[in-house]
């Protein structure tokens, strides 16, 4: 579906996921953040400028503030238990983010008021307060307001990042679109956020101009953006050899920096080595470390890289940029099924390992992806509630939950793709007949979902059954009594060049050994005890006698 078709579909303009609701959310988050930032930054900046104190401190805060990544602010605030994931973390992080430009511009604006004007005011007998209100503030207004405008536009653009930590706003379209492999949705999100930011800039530009006293306003037409650059017209000499050599030299140097930087960033290891990829969560790192040890032990040169999502890794597996990855049988089979047969293709994975493997191989083989033998260990999707909630309503199975949903509203949290995947929202409604009042888009069994559960922001969440954090947070996994979930045994997915008998034999040895109980324990050691994934993996392999040479 094209962007235009999406935007003209009335269905996308209503409901909590519609454009008006998302835009409103976006603006409310931005407005709250700006209000908080404004209350702090402008008075402090103005006062410091008035007293001409702490110039070093103010400029340092301005510089340091730019250096702290917004992503880090968001993640830090979201992982403070008292704040948690969602809109509050977004508002606080963006408020902090909005402070430096406003603080600096207020400080500089007041500090740089013409000393003559200041002297004249003092000479007229003005007190410090009068000087500030009647002279310094009006003269500093253009500078202060330009800082406010900069912050405002940045905040409006950056609210989109907050979707990564489970907050609302137009960024949801981008994050959800990425998770659902829906390029249209990503483009729609990019377009809407950009339009909103540009619109905000335009409105802010108009209104800040009105707020400046007439005498201080730049004359109409000669806006401050208008740059007058003196140059000589007329004689233009032809290119000389020296000038050309200078340009060539400069570009060789810049090109070297680009290539050198890219090599520094991406050139890890040897092109001959097999590349093992891990998703960026503990279990996947443990699996990657075990594959690394097993293959190294079998005399295969490998390197491990950490990548974010299946959407990134799977295409890389097809074209051989990645060679080995520990996948989840049912989920990956369905992922490839949707990729090959379209988003509305009927499900081929089910709760039987052999059938799902056969279906998965039928789809993966033509893509140049080999699914090796699945491990005994599985990490299924599962619905979890807090122990308190389970005890209160006597919940043991998902059917119990469905029964409960007939009498009271239920809020479900899960990955962005949940409303479209059979194992998630549609399955709950169609297979179990549950009535879900509201769906909250969070993450795939990650910290956002678990925190939202324990904070009571959602009643039921989709988690992973082998997650050590589930029991640590006192969450209860409900029994999937209608076999909604597909089998998600860990299975090595291999690129063409990695699918050699030697590699497959080495990985098969693990497949027949690793059980779900082992996996839960390994996860616990890494996620809860904070042990190193590589160490934990090697210890396990040594204990099970899977390494011939102990390294």
């Amino acid at each position: 579906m094209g962007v235009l078709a999406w935007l003209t579909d009335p269905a996308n303009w209503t409901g909590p996921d519609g454009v008006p609701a998302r835009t409103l959310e976006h603006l409310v988050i931005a407005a709250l953040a700006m209000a908080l930032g404004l209350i702090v930054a402008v008075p402090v900046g103005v006062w410091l400028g008035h007293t001409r104190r702490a110039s070093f401190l103010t400029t340092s805060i301005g510089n340091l503030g730019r250096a702290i990544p917004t992503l880090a602010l968001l993640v830090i605030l979201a992982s403070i238990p008292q704040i948690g994931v969602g809109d509050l973390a977004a508002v606080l992080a963006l408020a902090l983010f909005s402070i430096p430009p406003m603080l600096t511009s207020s400080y500089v604006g007041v500090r740089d008021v013409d000393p003559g004007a200041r002297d004249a005011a003092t000479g007229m007998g003005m007190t410090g307060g009068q000087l500030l209100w009647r002279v310094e503030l009006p003269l500093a207004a253009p500078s202060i307001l330009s800082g406010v405008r900069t912050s405002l536009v940045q905040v409006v653009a950056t609210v989109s990042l907050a979707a990564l930590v489970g907050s609302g706003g137009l960024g949801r379209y981008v994050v959800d679109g990425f998770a659902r492999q829906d390029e249209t949705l990503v483009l729609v999100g990019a377009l809407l956020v950009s339009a909103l930011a540009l619109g905000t800039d335009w409105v802010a530009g108009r209104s800040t101009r009105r707020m400046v006293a007439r005498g201080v306003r730049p004359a109409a037409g000669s806006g401050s953006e208008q740059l007058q650059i003196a140059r000589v017209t007329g004689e233009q000499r032809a290119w000389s050899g020296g000038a050309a050599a200078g340009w060539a030299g400069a570009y060789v140097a810049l090109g070297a920096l680009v290539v050198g930087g890219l090599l520094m960033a991406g050139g890890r290891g040897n092109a001959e080595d097999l590349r093992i990829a891990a998703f960026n969560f503990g279990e996947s790192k443990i699996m990657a470390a075990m594959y690394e040890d097993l293959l190294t032990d079998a005399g295969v040169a490998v390197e491990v890289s950490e990548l974010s999502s299946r959407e990134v890794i799977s295409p890389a597996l097809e074209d051989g940029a990645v060679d080995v990855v520990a996948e989840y049988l049912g989920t990956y089979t369905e992922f490839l099924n949707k990729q090959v047969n379209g988003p509305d293709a009927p499900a081929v994975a089910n709760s039987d390992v052999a059938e799902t493997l056969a279906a998965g191989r039928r789809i993966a083989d033509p893509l140049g992806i080999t699914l090796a033998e699945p491990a005994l260990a599985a990490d299924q999707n599962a619905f979890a509630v807090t122990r308190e909630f389970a005890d209160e309503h006597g919940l043991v199975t998902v059917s119990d939950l469905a029964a409960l949903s007939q009498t009271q509203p239920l809020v479900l949290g899960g990955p962005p793709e949940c409303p479209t995947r059979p194992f998630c929202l549609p399955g709950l409604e169609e297979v179990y007949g549950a009535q879900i009042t509201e769906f909250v888009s969070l993450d795939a069994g990650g910290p956002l979902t678990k925190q939202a559960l324990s904070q009571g922001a959602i009643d039921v969440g989709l988690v992973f059954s082998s997650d050590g954090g589930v029991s640590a947070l006192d969450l209860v996994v409900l029994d999937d009594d209608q076999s909604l979930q597909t089998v998600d045994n860990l299975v090595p997915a291999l690129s063409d060049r990695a699918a050699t008998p030697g590699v497959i034999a080495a990985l098969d040895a693990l497949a027949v050994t690793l059980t779900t109980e082992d996996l839960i324990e390994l996860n616990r050691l890494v996620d809860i005890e904070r042990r190193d994934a590589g160490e934990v993996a090697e210890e396990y392999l040594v204990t099970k006698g899977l390494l011939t040479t102990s390294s």
Partner: protein
Amino acid sequence: MNSDNPWLSWSYVQDHWRELIAVGFEHLGITVAAIALACAVAVPLALLARRHPSLAGSIIGISGVLYTIPSLALISVLWPVFGLSPLTVVVALAVYALLVMVRAILVGLSEVPAGTVDAAVGMGMSDRELLWRVQAPLALPTALAGLRIVTVSTVGMVTVGALVGYGGYGSMILAGLYENAYHAKIATATICVVLLALVLDALLLLLERQVTPWVRGR
């Protein structure tokens, strides 16, 4: 959750210093490549705008529009084009650096006093001599100030590249969140980003002093 989950942990640094350094090189590499790419485009654009002042408005306008595209969206949109490589992140960051660089160069050129230009013309300088002997050196401090701003903000923005697996310390920050909120990992990686930004800023300040010695007496 786990009660023993400190934000600051020296033992975390001791156990992971190799990883921290390796990730630092990735972060630095992406930053340097993005800024070099931006400079390679910004300088000719700025000179074009100088020669044809009517273009200045549209060059700044278009790069301003690009600047407001959220980094998350730009990286997601570029990913199908450049695939699984650091180039995706580098190109996206170069787009953001571009606006600031072009604007800084143009502001620097516009701040050259008209009297100085008149004097240079009166001495019989050609347009190219005027540019390279008078305007460029006088615009250099402003352009370098722009470069410093770009460097610091690029170091911060590299983190968003975590979305496609090349986010330097950003990948660690996001991974920390997903490992049941591993506070030490998140905090250490954040501190490393800030330190990297401060070190690069200090190095550029030194460079600025070296190449524009006449500014120092201010």
